[in-house]
């Protein structure tokens, strides 16, 4: 089956920043994204867990989206400006999709 190359962006962001980040994705022309809960983890800022937080302030969520290479570059610049002071990870990898017109 014919597949088409695209980019897959995966971002682990703090819950309070989620709304800002998804607004940025929409403003930069990303046609769709998925938000997934993350249970717990550990990193340079220490351990964290979904449990033990009264509100969502201490939680992390994962945002995944597929996008074209042209959309990716300007998005990454703006995402860096938004997220560089926060906890989290942004990674990009290559992927293949079946319906390129959707991304």
């Amino acid at each position, binding site marked *: 089956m014919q597949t088409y190359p695209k980019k897959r962006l995966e971002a682990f962001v703090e819950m309070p920043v989620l709304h*800002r980040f998804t607004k940025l994705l929409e403003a930069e022309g990303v046609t769709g994204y998925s938000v997934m809960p993350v249970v717990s983890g550990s990193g340079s*800022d220490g351990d964290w867990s*979904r*449990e*033990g937080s009264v*509100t969502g*302030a*201490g939680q992390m969520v994962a945002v995944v989206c597929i996008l074209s290479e042209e959309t990716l570059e300007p998005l990454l610049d703006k995402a860096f400006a938004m997220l560089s002071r*926060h906890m989290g990870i942004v990674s990009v990898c290559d992927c293949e999709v079946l319906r390129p017109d959707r991304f």
Partner: protein
Amino acid sequence: MGDILNLAGTNLLAPPVLFFALGFAASFARSDLEVPQAVAKALSLYLLLAIGFKGGVAVASHGIDARLAATLASGVILSALIPFIAFGSLRAFTGLPRVDAAAVAAHYGSISVVTFAAATSVLTSAGIDYEGYLVATAALMETPAIMSALLLMRGANGKEANGTSGELWREIALNGSIVVLTGAFVIGWITGPKGLAEVSAFIVDPFKGVLCLFLLDMGLVAGRGMRQSARDLTPPLFAFGIAMPLIGGVLGAFASYLVGLSPGGAALLTTLAASASYIAVPAAMRLALPEARPSIYLSLSLGITFPFNLTLGIPIYILLGNIAGG
């Protein structure tokens, strides 16, 4: 004094405090007891709704007067002022970095609605009346402290608060807990005692039971937080977590005296000034001061000050309210 000691003893053996202790102990014993997160959130919404609604009804019954306006103004001033005292104390005695000190200061200027709820529960059990509009004061005291923390950070090491824009303030003002508390207050105000009679079976009768369940979860959360963050809490920080609510409480009592609140109302304003936020402010700090460490500010407000206020603080604040109240 004897009455207050009796009240302190009664408070320590009250079901909400004992459920908090149960959660705290279970967490330290590494029990698998847990309250599902969605349930805890629903309990929190219920408490905010009930407190806000009852406060609105009290204002509808009482009417608006100069004392109400003065109480609201004093709450805003306390919330804005306390962070500067907390920040100065932290910088002088704990060596905490500026950004952490500013974030902690914001927590202590803002308030804990659950501590407020526990104090109203103690007053009600003791048959002490209070001004219902203190709920509106609680809602107003949530955010000025955040503004003070951002002022404290302005220009510090070239690091401005992150996104001090209209968007940041919109996000803070629309924080779910503030929306529910304020909205329920307005609805209670509009519908008055008649509205309360219609929903009292939901809002009044189950309140204490729900508070017990919520405090069980808070005990688990506080215990877990303490276990995970114990290494970050130095003795000076621990001392700050006990001393700062007492300082805030004295300021609250003084403001109550100036405003002319009743002993019960003075106890509540004192409790508000003494309490530290762990719901609205942590979210605001993640947006505005992301470099600040949650392990410091949450451990202090939730792990030290909240248990202190719940057990020993509230009787002390009722004593201060008795002294300051007219």
